[in-house]
């Protein structure tokens, strides 16, 4: 079946521009996660949705970062007034409900954001 998809795959933004990154999770997966992966680092948690509810946004680095999942499926991560330190790969992952007993997450290919 189809996996997690993300678009665009690459994004170049000038400093100060706003960007929007899209994630299409696996159908039926209620849990959705965003991670930020800086060059040479492991992914770091940004935020978590269960259906349309954003239950944890403790990893968002500043109030310039905003995520939404209004209908409990597609999610968008928005970064306002981008800065060079925002350059990273943004990964989206989805998983079935915690009650399913499936503990692993399924990752998309990521969006590589470069801020110039």
């Amino acid at each position, binding site marked *: 079946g189809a996996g997690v998809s993300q678009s665009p795959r690459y994004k170049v933004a000038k400093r100060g521009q706003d960007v929007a990154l899209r994630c299409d999770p696996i159908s039926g997966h209620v*849990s959705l996660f965003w991670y930020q992966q800086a060059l040479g680092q*492991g992914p770091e948690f940004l935020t978590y949705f269960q259906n349309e509810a954003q239950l944890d946004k403790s990893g968002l680095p500043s109030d310039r970062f905003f995520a939404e999942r209004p209908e409990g499926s597609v999610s968008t991560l928005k970064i306002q007034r981008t800065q060079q330190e925002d350059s990273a790969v943004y990964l989206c992952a989805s998983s079935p409900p915690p009650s399913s007993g499936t503990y692993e997450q399924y990752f998309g290919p990521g969006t590589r954001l470069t801020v110039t």
Partner: protein
Amino acid sequence: AQSVAQPEDQVNVAEGNPLTVKCTYSVSGNPYLFWYVQYPNRGLQFLLKYITGDNLVKGSYGFEAEFNKSQTSFHLKKPSALVSDSALYFCAVRPRHSGGYNKLIFGAGTRLAVHP
């Protein structure tokens, strides 16, 4: 603070030889443990997990991992390496009591290079 350590930035091994990629963690309780692999320009692919039970778990592509509670380690192993195993490997943990969802903490990654 909760953390995952992968002490080797890179592991070099000859094709056909056994390989080990090390992972230790500092997380309270008995976390769930995972290994993911990342190929260039692709997202993370799930390899295997330890939830409970036998300390030796088997996963995809002939990989296995050994959980050692006293050493808080979860080393990835394969009896006979293939050139196609060359990739970036990430160890990840999920605290067992993390609010009921699968927030993952990742190590920085280890690059595995298998030489013909």
